[in-house]
């Protein structure tokens, strides 16, 4: 099901300024969707447009079937939002605050109390919920912010940099929580981050923004697919790596050293090659590596397919 849809969405702050978001056409479905981009790439602008807090300069969009220009209130009833920056009053107890935010989102008093306790348990703030939030650690603050975004049982949550400022262990917890929300709780999640590695782990779909423009929007799997490049490691005499490289070149393969590994480019297939030919080429390349190593008498430690990483998107498509 499509939960967010934008068509040519553009936002300029001031008429002469470069667009913060330019001609964005994208669809977001169920599950966890990562929104990646450097600082200033337009992530927060997109979220504010989706919440109906900013009016787009041009283009259109809808969230859960509500138009973002006309249906702001309906959207904000159904969406949970966790902002990037600090947003907790220091002189309130967490439980009171989450109940209050539940009520402001339209829950009756009894339901707000019950759900606040429930949600705080899910985010792992069961014991600390009666303390004033001014004394919270960054990790606890992030959990409290997440709790207030979930208290009214939204149909979609927008999480702006939920792992900001967290230590590695807390970061893992938060990411696991994001994944639970998207899959176990069944609430679609749009989560932003400037750390690609994080989104690689939790998201089903990744949208990459750069300077307000859409770079790519694809299944996470597509980013992480086999690139065809093979990494080989050999051991033997001191020059084993160099001899192996030369022998591979003699057999017509393009390779280069990368640290202690040898990186072999895939064999270019003719344009009309089918899937079967690709598989054959894949196997043949490995056979050649094995035979070459056997001929040279060097030990073959590793033959590894190199999978893509999200960072490659920036390497490929953004000229330095």
């Amino acid at each position, binding site marked *: 099901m499509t939960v967010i849809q934008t068509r040519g969405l553009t936002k300029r702050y001031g008429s002469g300024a470069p667009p913060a978001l330019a001609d964005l056409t994208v669809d977001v479905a169920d599950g966890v969707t990562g929104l990646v981009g450097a600082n200033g790439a337009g992530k927060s602008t997109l979220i*504010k447009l989706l*919440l109906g*807090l*900013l009016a787009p300069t041009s283009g259109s969009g809808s969230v859960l079937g509500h138009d973002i220009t006309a249906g*702001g*209130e309906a959207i*904000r*009833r159904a*969406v949970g*939002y966790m*902002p990037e*920056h*600090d*947003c*907790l*009053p*220091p*002189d*309130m107890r967490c439980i*009171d605050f989450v109940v*209050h*935010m539940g*009520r*402001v*989102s*339209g*829950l*009756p*008093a009894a*339901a707000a109390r019950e*759900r606040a306790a*429930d949600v705080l348990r*899910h985010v792992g703030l069961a014991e600390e919920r009666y303390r*004033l939030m001014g004394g919270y650690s960054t990790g606890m603050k992030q959990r409290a912010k997440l709790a*207030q975004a979930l208290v*009214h*049982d939204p149909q979609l949550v927008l999480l702006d940099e939920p792992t900001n400022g967290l230590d590695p262990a807390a970061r893992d917890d938060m990411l696991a929580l994001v994944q639970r929300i998207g899959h*176990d*709780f*069944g609430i679609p999640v749009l989560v932003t981050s400037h750390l690609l590695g994080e989104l690689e782990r939790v998201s089903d779909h990744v949208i990459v923004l750069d300077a307000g423009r859409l770079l790519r929007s694809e299944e996470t799997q597509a980013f992480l697919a086999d690139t065809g490049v093979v990494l080989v490691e050999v051991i033997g005499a001191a020059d084993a790596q160099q001899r192996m490289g030369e022998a591979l070149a003699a057999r017509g393969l393009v390779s280069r050293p990368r640290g202690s590994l040898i990186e072999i480019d895939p064999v270019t297939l003719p344009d009309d090659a089918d899937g079967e030919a690709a598989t054959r080429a894949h196997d043949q390349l490995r056979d050649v590596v094995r035979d070459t190593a056997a001929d040279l008498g060097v030990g073959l430690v590793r033959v590894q397919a190199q999978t893509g990483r999200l960072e490659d998107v920036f390497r490929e498509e953004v000229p330095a």
Partner: protein
Amino acid sequence: MSAPAERTGVIHDIGYRRYAGARMSSAGIAGSLLASGVLAVFGFGRSGKAKILPFVLLGMTMVPAVVMVGIMSFIGLDAGLLNYASYNAGSSFLVVLFVAAQAPVLFSRDLRSGVISLYLARPLGASAFALIRWASLVLAILAFVLTPLLVLFIGGLSAGASFTEELPRVAWALAGAVVLALLVATVAALVSSWTLRRGLAIAGTIMVLLVGLGVTVALKETLFFEGMDTAAHWVSLLSPFALVDAVTAVLGGTDAQITSAPESVATGWLLVSTALALMAVGLLLLIRRYRSKGA
């Protein structure tokens, strides 16, 4: 093997539960926000020590009322002692302290701690939110200024004052208190939504309200002395306390406490309507402030 039925006290992880119950309309949300705002001014829903200051001030503002009622009951002085309309002018210092200390709770705190971005991501928009916050402050100030008046009124009745004689006098005082609450709340809301630091907001509000009162009195006296009476009456607009005092004096026939009141009833009404118009402008500024925060 024991039967499963013998086991007791099993903890089930029921997982995440969806909410399918009723949800409130926008009016319901506004009502709950209004109530929580009024309570927050008196420290409810906040830390324990947040309740100290508002209640100490409320206690202090009641002292004269209690003393007057006491004097009436025990010494048996007549009801002429009950001067409702001048009560707020007389206790203006406490009202200013209360408003200055508590307005930042509603305005500076949201804007400074960033909670405003959460509120604006909820169904109510920026304008409704700003107006509800202002209304919360108006109601809180009303509670603060009306309580001693009611103590005075009810205490006076029980001490033998005549209900029919006292009612019109107290009614004018109550009307004056409402106008006072509206004007003071607008001034305090503007000051504390622009100065995000609590200390600055407190100092700023005291400055505008108390120094404003002093300046108004001084200016009025000077202008009366110079014989420019019309100008002197219009100067009342600089201070809500002076204005309410002057207007209730001319319209309700109460004793002016601060300076002499205008003689023409028309001037009185004109002053009130101008003050309310200025208040509307203030509210527009407040809404603009919240809108710019949301974008």
